[in-house]
């Protein structure tokens, strides 16, 4: 038992920070002693949300992305937030293979990946205000 823990990271929406964001969240989550597979799930989901903030939220302009992580008992809650252009239709956005930017060879699988690898995914978005993706992962390896 590590007890409650919390961190908040703010970084620039540059693509070189995608791997940085993954490492930060993974090493915070590491406190819960997850399996390698569970940690890979978290890294992949974070990568999707951060990439979306960069490409779709800020459309490649440089601004701040915020990640907030809270550990309680056996789970981690991860919030990825941008103050970018927002999502018009969240239900449509969540559909597998739907992408608004096929010209960038986006696969439209980002939200599907997040929902597959995390135990809970919740999207809040408002046009021209920004997007906030809240995800929860429960580590089975902790449930002793």
């Amino acid at each position, binding site marked *: 038992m590590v007890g409650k823990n919390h961190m908040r990271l703010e970084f620039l929406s540059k*693509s*070189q920070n*995608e*791997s940085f964001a*993954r490492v930060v969240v993974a090493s915070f989550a590491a406190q819960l002693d997850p399996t390698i*597979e569970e940690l*890979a799930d978290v*890294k*992949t989901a974070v*990568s*999707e949300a951060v*990439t979306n903030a*960069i*490409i779709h939220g800020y459309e490649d302009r440089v601004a701040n992305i915020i990640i907030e992580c809270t550990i309680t008992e056996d789970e981690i809650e991860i919030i990825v937030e941008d103050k970018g252009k927002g999502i018009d239709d969240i239900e449509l956005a969540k559909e*597998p293979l739907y992408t608004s930017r096929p010209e*960038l*060879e*986006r*696969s439209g*699988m*980002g939200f*599907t*990946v997040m929902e*597959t690898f995390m135990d809970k995914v919740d999207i809040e978005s408002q046009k021209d205000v920004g997007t906030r993706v809240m995800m929860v992962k429960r580590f089975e390896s902790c449930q002793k």
Partner: protein
Amino acid sequence: MLTKFEIINNDLIVKLDGELDHHTAKTVREEIDREIDENNTKNIIFDLEGVHFMDSSGIGVVMGRYKKVQRLGGETGVINLSSRVEKIFKMSGLFNIVKKFENKKEALERL
């Protein structure tokens, strides 16, 4: 991300090493496309043994190359998937368009 190429009869084998995400995808895509164009590539084979991270940007890279070679009648194969990368291929339905082979030899023979 490291990209290595090998050409055997008009087939292009692409060996990737590193993390395949949105940041690395752009260069990887450009490098592969140049090889395809320059070498008159028919089929493309991805060797993913060295890919220790991949997200949906990687799916986009594979889909994009599939479409490119398909236009000229070529096919796409993959070899050496880690269980992790295999999971992402399965989830995204990529195995409906690209074929998985045991090794390079099998891929070259059966494509």
